[in-house]
């Protein structure tokens, strides 16, 4: 009996549960699009930002990152549902290590998060008011955006597992995730460019893993020339290294039957 069979079975189970939860499916895609319409139009017309060309398009990579953030968080929380329903201890009583169980669950969270973020990207691409620049050509730009989305979800799902190993309740998990992720999101360049911020916020932006994902998506979708805030090689390197490390440690964590 191979570990791959077990991992695929666990992934299929979580994906099926997600597809059955229509409200989660629709709201996770509709919410960022709604925010894009309201916030994008509101800021463009109401505040008229001088330094940002085409704010709605600028905001789109941020909304895609936000989709990944909330989707991965939500999917990681299914660990608590399995623990509370007693399913987790049944899975742990199988002939597989806890790592296999965590891998199956975390990979499904990555897939769910990535697919939702890609859906937002696809819908945004079809909206006439959003003007993606595809500065590396459509194919390479799209590849860069998809890569950023997948790697971002790897990082976030791993982070979810790391936090779940420390936090006993699902309520506490959501609270801490919000506490961690909202600042991540705000200082990632998703809503406003990092360029004109005070130095201390720029430092936070540089320490923020999400900034590199958002920057990469800005380069792929929004930028029309220019090397972005960090630059593509830096985005690629930092994001990949962080995602691999956090995902590895997140899925290697110990699983206690009591928490």
């Amino acid at each position, binding site marked *: *009996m191979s570990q791959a069979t*077990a991992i695929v*079975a666990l992934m299929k189970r979580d994906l099926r549960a997600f597809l059955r939860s229509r409200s989660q499916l629709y709201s996770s895609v509709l919410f960022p699009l709604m925010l894009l319409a309201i916030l994008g139009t509101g800021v463009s017309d109401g505040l008229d930002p001088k330094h940002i060309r085409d704010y709605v398009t600028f905001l789109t990579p941020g909304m895609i990152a936000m989709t990944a953030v909330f989707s991965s968080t939500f999917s990681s929380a299914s660990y608590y549902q399995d623990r509370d329903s007693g*399913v987790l201890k049944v899975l742990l009583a199988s002939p*597989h290590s806890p790592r296999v169980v965590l891998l199956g669950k975390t990979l499904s969270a990555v897939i769910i998060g990535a697919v939702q973020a890609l859906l937002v990207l696809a819908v945004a691409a079809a909206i006439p008011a959003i003007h993606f620049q595809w500065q590396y050509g459509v194919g390479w730009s799209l590849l860069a955006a998809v890569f950023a989305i997948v790697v971002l979800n790897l990082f976030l799902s791993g982070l979810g597992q790391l936090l779940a190993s420390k936090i006993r309740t699902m309520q506490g998990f959501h609270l801490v995730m919000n506490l961690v992720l909202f600042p991540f999101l705000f200082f990632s360049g998703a809503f406003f460019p990092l360029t004109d911020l005070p130095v201390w916020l720029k430092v936070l932006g540089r320490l923020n893993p999400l900034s590199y994902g958002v920057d990469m998506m800005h380069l792929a979708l929004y930028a029309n020339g220019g090397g972005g805030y960090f630059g593509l090689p830096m985005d690629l390197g930092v994001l990949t290294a962080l995602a691999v490390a956090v995902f590895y440690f997140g899925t290697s964590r110990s699983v206690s039957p009591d928490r």
Partner: protein
Amino acid sequence: MKIAAAPGATDRTFAPTHPAAVEVRDLVYRYGERRALDGLSLAVPSGAIFGLLGPNGSGKSTLLSILIGRRAAESGEVAVLGEPLSNHQRARIGIVFQEPSLDPQMTVSETMDLQARMFGLRRDAGSAQTHALLERVDLAERADALTATLSGGMKRRLELARALLNSPELLLLDEPTLALDPDSRLRLWEHLLEANAEGRTLLLATNDVAEAERYCQTVALLDEGRLVAQGRPEDLKRDLRHESVRIEWAEDPADEAVMMEGWPGVGHVRLAGHTTHVTVDAASPFLARLFQQTGDRVRGVRIEATTLEDVYFQLVGRGIASPGGAEGGAS
């Protein structure tokens, strides 16, 4: 890492290959400062229905969780089916947990399918096993129903079917009939006896004395993680050499209970509302004295067969229903 398929994964019967399905020696496990298992040693014969009997906190569930590898003992030795614990061994074990363990968003057949995949059964073999087991536990017609829609008894039968899917040689049962109505209990036990008849060893953790007496060939009485006594229920009771008298009182019998404790030939006196259970060397002289001294305060008297509860009380000094300090979670 590849794990070998469970032997007899599709077989329905097999002959035990080891004299002891479970053997533990000097097992110690702690929850913080409290010793949940305090040097426990016992052997479960292959093919037996073996009961672990004791109150909450006596170490029953902790032992089961060690046997499936969910907890690691602090010290001591564990052998399951003749070998030390390993992932490979877990493929030969099935378990029904005390608490419900079904995903309410999965259907009955999806629940079985996931288990089949986790235990490495091939799709066709898994489907055939699932179908046969659901037929066996009368759930075939509910195969497409969400588990959330099943009754308590059905859920338990599904959990049993799931535990049997990998054709385990050893079936661990942690209070499987808890909170079931009498009919559901009976039906579940019919299936459990059938599983035992196929050669599987059943290791049952329970604090239900009647169930242990009725179904277990051997019982181990546990107290605070230690083995107090072990043997066939009838042998344990025979060794007690006591009779049990149940007295119904017209009013609160606290004073009478204290009084009776001082009488010669009286063993243990247990109060339960307006009822007193007394173990005595001989019922006749006890009853004569009872009526003489308490008169019309007694509403009724019944001489009952000695139970394992009486045995436990005699050995430990408290009943199985009374908590034994369950802090730390598992009992």
